[in-house]
């Protein structure tokens, strides 16, 4: 039996003891003294049903829920009392059903609210997680944008520096050419002038007196020094040209291992003693690139490695390795040279930054290298310990 509002209500539920106390005496009085109320099974709720009493059924829906009994009442009076009781009970059952249903529906609404609340809490948690995720994503993208921005800025800077360098190289090359050629000619002239010494005639005395022997010798030395200086200028200009050339030239399909071997052979030609090369090159997929620039890049990095070992004053080794995975080509150029401080690493890719004594280079090696790498959508990074050595890691993506 359920306890729902829709149960069939029993008489003793509808008439509690207090109502019975009120109704009992009133009905007794109305019905001439004898009155009893029983439930549908005959159990007395009020009064003592006498065996000869008249009986009227109390019906709420279909079946009697109880009986009115009286031996003193007339049939009409008993029937009227039944009407009265039925009306009273119907009002009572409506009240009971309505209030019980109200409680049930409030409980139901409360359950709904709880479910709703649980759903809301859950979705709140989901949104929290989502917003955290979004924040992280936004942060990452902002970071990426900033990095791009920085790269663009650097690239612009490099491009303008490159233009300047190209202009300078062009302007310097002209005077360089004729100064070099003049120096050679002038040396020839000096030789001619030296013939005066053995030339028969009165000039020999003056030669001695003016110590022209020394002047001639020193003059030639000076010319040689000047020629060396010119050569150095020519090399700097060549570096400048290479640096400024990065965005030109044509693309080719190339094996980077070949480029590495070429660069090594170029550096090896002027290698100081005590420096070893070790190549550890695994097969690589071919990539579309600017081989001239790639050669320049490898040349710069390898030459830096050699110079770093030379600077350390110890024998050392340059180890070059390459390998490919599904994302691209990884190249590592490691030396056992002087290494770099954190501050030096920070500046390493800036054009015109150099750790070497003024005059030994323009400091365009790594700046050019990075330019080349970026033109190939690649990455370059430095890892170094002072006095232990430097590793330059290069990465070139391959199309998926």
């Amino acid at each position: 039996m359920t306890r729902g509002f829709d149960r069939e209500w029993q008489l003793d539920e509808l008439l509690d003891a207090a109502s019975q106390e009120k109704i009992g005496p009133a009905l007794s009085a109305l019905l001439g003294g004898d009155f009893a109320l029983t439930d549908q099974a005959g159990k007395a709720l009020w009064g003592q049903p006498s065996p000869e009493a008249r009986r009227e059924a109390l019906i709420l829906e279909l079946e009697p829920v109880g009986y009115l009994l009286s031996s003193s009442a007339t049939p009409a009076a008993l029937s009227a009392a039944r009407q009265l009781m039925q009306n009273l009970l119907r009002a009572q059952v409506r009240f009971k059903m309505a209030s019980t249903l109200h409680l049930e529906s409030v409980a139901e609404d409360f359950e709904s609210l709880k479910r709703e609340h649980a759903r809301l809490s859950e979705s709140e948690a989901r949104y929290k997680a989502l917003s955290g995720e979004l924040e992280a994503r936004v942060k990452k993208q902002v970071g990426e944008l900033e990095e791009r921005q920085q790269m663009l800025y650097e690239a612009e800077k490099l491009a303008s520096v490159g233009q300047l360098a190209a202009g300078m190289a062009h302007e310097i090359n002209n005077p360089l050419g004729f100064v070099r050629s003049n120096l050679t000619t002038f040396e020839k002239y000096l030789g001619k002038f030296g013939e005066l010494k053995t030339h028969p005639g009165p000039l020999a005395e003056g030669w001695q007196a003016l110590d022209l022997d020394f002047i001639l010798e020193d003059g030639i030395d000076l010319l040689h020094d000047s020629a060396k200086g010119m050569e150095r200028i020519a090399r700097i200009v060549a570096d400048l040209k290479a640096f400024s050339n990065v965005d030109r030239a044509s693309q080719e399909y190339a094996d980077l291992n070949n480029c590495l071997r070429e660069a090594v052979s170029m550096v090896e030609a002027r290698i100081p003693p005590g420096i070893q090369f070790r190549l550890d090159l695994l097969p690589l997929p071919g990539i579309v690139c600017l081989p001239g620039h790639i050669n320049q890049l490898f040349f710069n990095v390898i030459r830096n490695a050699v110079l770093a070992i030379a600077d350390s004053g110890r024998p050392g080794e340059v180890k070059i390795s390459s390998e490919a995975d599904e994302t691209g080509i990884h190249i590592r150029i490691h030396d056992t040279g002087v290494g770099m401080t954190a501050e030096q690493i920070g500046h390493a890719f800036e054009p015109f930054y150099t750790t070497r004594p003024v005059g030994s280079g323009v400091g365009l090696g790594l700046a050019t290298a990075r330019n080349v790498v970026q033109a190939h959508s690649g990455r370059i990074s430095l890892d170094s310990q002072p006095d232990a050595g430097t590793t330059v890691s290069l990465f070139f993506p391959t199309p998926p």
Partner: protein
Amino acid sequence: MPESDAQHLTFKLVYYGPAQSGKTTNLLRLHDLLAPELKGEVMTMETKDDRTLFFDLLPLGFRAPSGLLIKFRLFTVPGQVAHDGTRKAVLSRADGVVFVADADRAQETNNGESFQSLAANCARVGLDFEHLPMVVQFNKCDLPSAVPEAEIRERWSAAPWPLVFAIALTGQGVETSFELLIRTVYRNFCQKLKLQSEHGLSEDAFVAGALGKST
């Protein structure tokens, strides 16, 4: 499952549907039309604007050859959206449902929402909507704005429930809806309640008893 003891078997039947679709009118007309052995008064719980606040109840009953008293308690639910808690409480423990839709074209959305709420509330109160005995009644077919029968049939062609087109105001289709529902109820419970085997009740006898007339 109907409530039962040795002498009684009570089926709870619920008239469900949107507000003002004619549920109370269905009960009032059934009270006039049916003449079973036992018939109570319609108990309505209405507010003064005539909208059912809690529920209406019509009790009917007849005795099976075995002496078992079979009772039907027909309830209506309040259609207003605000009374969902009450609707659920009234719907719980139902043995069958007449869904009273309003054929007025303007009421299509309300019908849809009410039907959705019936399905959802069945799940909430532990009724198996798929297997619940049900009849779908489209009431107010007399209205000029009523959706034509053919269109409704077409739209409900995939649904498993019998469709009745009614004018509750005049009683048309009211008895048919009730009869179709108790036939489904009988088939649903005949085995479980041994209606035929122990109580000697055939489907037709069951229906005849409930309607108070031979069918």
